[in-house]
């Protein structure tokens, strides 16, 4: 089966529908599937639920889908950088379910690994724990009980992710901290579409260094990425 598609629109053909749940990789603007998000905007798919750590900025990342009112709900850990997001949220036009960052990542990983739920200490005694099953386990230093909450795995209708390199079978390699949420997001999608900077011939990636095996990737495109920097911080070269 051929996984490589000519462009983002072709790769998403037939997999989008109104009201669907999409898991997206990326942290801030780093490692986001910018080409696929643009194609979802152009497709006009509505009432989307996004599982994504962040919501982009006003004119980049998931932010572009907020401008067109295509997003109904976000499952995120931090949404600070997006004024349009805040406007829609305060006006009651957008739902948000805050997830602790590690809980969100594990919910994706678990969903993709056939685990419908898991117990975690994260969020016990906070707003995050409200309405969730609580259970004690004898995990204390001397075997004393500690309280955990049940969090559920996420299975998304579609995952959109960004990697650095792929071979034509969808084996993926990420670069530096652009890996972030991309592997767990890819794993939890019923269908996963990946965009990469370069597709190389099979045999040219080291099998011992594949970050995400191609079994998780159903469709693939190569494209040019803007890779915008959100906060450019530098130091001066010391005078010699």
């Amino acid at each position, binding site marked *: 089966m051929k996984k490589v598609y000519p462009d983002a629109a072709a790769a998403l053909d037939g997999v989008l529908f109104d009201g669907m749940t999409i898991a997206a990789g990326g*942290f801030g603007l780093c490692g986001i599937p910018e080409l696929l998000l643009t194609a979802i905007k152009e497709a006009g798919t509505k009432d989307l639920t996004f599982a994504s750590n962040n919501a982009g900025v006003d004119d980049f990342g998931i932010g572009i889908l907020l401008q067109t009112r295509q997003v109904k709900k976000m499952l995120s850990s*931090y949404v600070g950088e997006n004024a349009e997001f805040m406007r829609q949220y305060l006006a009651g036009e957008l739902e948000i379910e805050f997830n602790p960052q590690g809980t969100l990542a594990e919910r994706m990983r678990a969903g993709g690994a056939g685990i419908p739920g898991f117990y975690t200490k994260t969020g016990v005694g906070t707003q995050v724990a409200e309405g969730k099953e609580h259970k004690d386990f004898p995990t204390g230093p001397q075997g004393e009980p500690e309280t955990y909450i049940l969090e559920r795995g996420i299975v998304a209708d579609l995952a959109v992710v960004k990697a650095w390199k792929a071979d034509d079978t969808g084996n993926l390699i990420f670069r*530096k901290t652009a*890996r972030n*949420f991309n592997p767990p997001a890819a794993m939890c999608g019923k269908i996963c579409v990946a965009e990469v900077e370069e597709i190389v011939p099979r045999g040219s990636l080291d099998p011992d260094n594949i970050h995400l095996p191609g079994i998780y990737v159903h469709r693939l495109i190569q494209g040019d990425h803007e890779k915008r920097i959100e906060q450019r911080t530098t*130091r001066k070269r010391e005078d010699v």
Partner: protein
Amino acid sequence: MPWDRNQMAERAAQELEDGMYVNLGIGIPTLVANYVGDKEITLQSENGMLGMGAFPYEGEEDPDLINAGKQTITELSRTSYFDSATSFGMIRGGKIAAAILGAMEVAENGDLANWMIPGKLVKGMGGAMDLVAGVGRVIVVMDHTSKHGDSKLLKECTLPLTGTGVVDRIITNLGVLDVVEGGLKIVETAEGVTEDELRAATEATII
């Protein structure tokens, strides 16, 4: 004289031992890295990196290399990268020895509030809840009192919690306190600050 930001960071750096893997929060905690001296401290960035380096030189910024505050950074010879699920696996699994974090409020039982103020814009907790629930030791660095002079060390937190009973040690501009059975215990005071002055500025029970 109470400690300034850099002196608080310098004091917090004394909490770190050679070989530790540590997560530093945003603000004063970030400054702690400037005071570790010869100790080999490996900084974790929860977006998926161990061995965080300094900011890059101008012109060498890499959009694929940022820290959890979304700032461009650099790698070290011992750096490793991993995905977010693995990153929080090492946090939740207690592999990270310590987190040094800022706070809005700490209660005498170790409750911590640092993620939202009701009525103000809610941006989200990011990785704060995972960190305080998972790492070996939670060290809070913050001003002892608010701008209005109110104690930030309370009998009970008034803001929504980030975690319950999670704080081990608090370093403020007035001194160092540990969370112990029955309240807070003074470990030391900043040079020129008396125990009486520290007590007077504290609402929480000091035993």
